[in-house]
């Protein structure tokens, strides 16, 4: 019964979360890109803007849960084995993708202009 049982909790994580404490050294107008890279490593992405550039450190957390409630029925009612499972199948599933991102704006001299976090980790959950 356990083999191929459609009950599953699945999770996919991309990169490490950058915490508030990790960026306490950043001072807008003073901290340079090289200082940031020294502490946090290379950013996940870099994009040019009209006033300089934006760098991003990205974390992603995907959670997924599924259960097929009708799967055991053929064991209880053998006649159902002759019926395609699609006709009586009842599956509950749910999940979400949560992102956590540190965005740092830099001017044309690669000095920090602003930085902020985008928190959406609550979007990642198992509950349907």
């Amino acid at each position, binding site marked *: 019964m*356990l083999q191929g049982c459609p009950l599953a909790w699945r999770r996919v994580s991309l990169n490490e979360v950058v915490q508030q404490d990790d960026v306490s050294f950043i001072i807008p107008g003073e901290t340079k890109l090289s200082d940031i890279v020294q502490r946090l490593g290379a950013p996940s992405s870099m994009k040019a803007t009209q006033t300089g550039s934006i760098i991003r450190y990205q974390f992603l957390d995907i959670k997924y849960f599924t259960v097929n409630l009708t799967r055991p029925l053929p064991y209880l009612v053998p006649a159902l084995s002759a019926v395609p499972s699609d006709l009586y199948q009842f599956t509950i599933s749910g999940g979400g993708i949560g992102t956590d991102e540190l965005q740092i704006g830099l001017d044309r001299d690669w000095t920090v202009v602003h930085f902020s976090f985008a928190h959406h980790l609550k979007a990642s959950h198992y509950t349907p």
Partner: protein
Amino acid sequence: MSCNINTRRNTLGRILTALLLLASVISSGCAFFRGNYDDEFNADDVAAIKVGTSTRQDVANLLGAPERVIEANDQEIFHYYNYMVKSGTILFFSRTNVVGNDLYIFFSRDGIAQQVISGRQKPSPKMQFWPFGD
């Protein structure tokens, strides 16, 4: 005497059956996977890039063609990246961890390397199957 032998045989048979069932249950839903997207950066190749002298061609000879070329602040930037994936599945539980590493090389307008940005390389992802917690 024969009764004792039969009892022992029965007990041994039950233990073997239980072990076989346990093994079949545990091994039926097991999978472990490890993969890479592109090669990891060779530290010697990165160290061979000389700021102020290496050209775009020198960099391309060492690291190959970049994954992306970005233009920012009048500079051309070569972006190299790689990803490492580790995934574990046991019965109903599955977890996949992905870690990416990035390398940026900044060039001046005349194509000379100005800055190499790699920072610390992130640790290899953990091989896990338990999807709860951190």
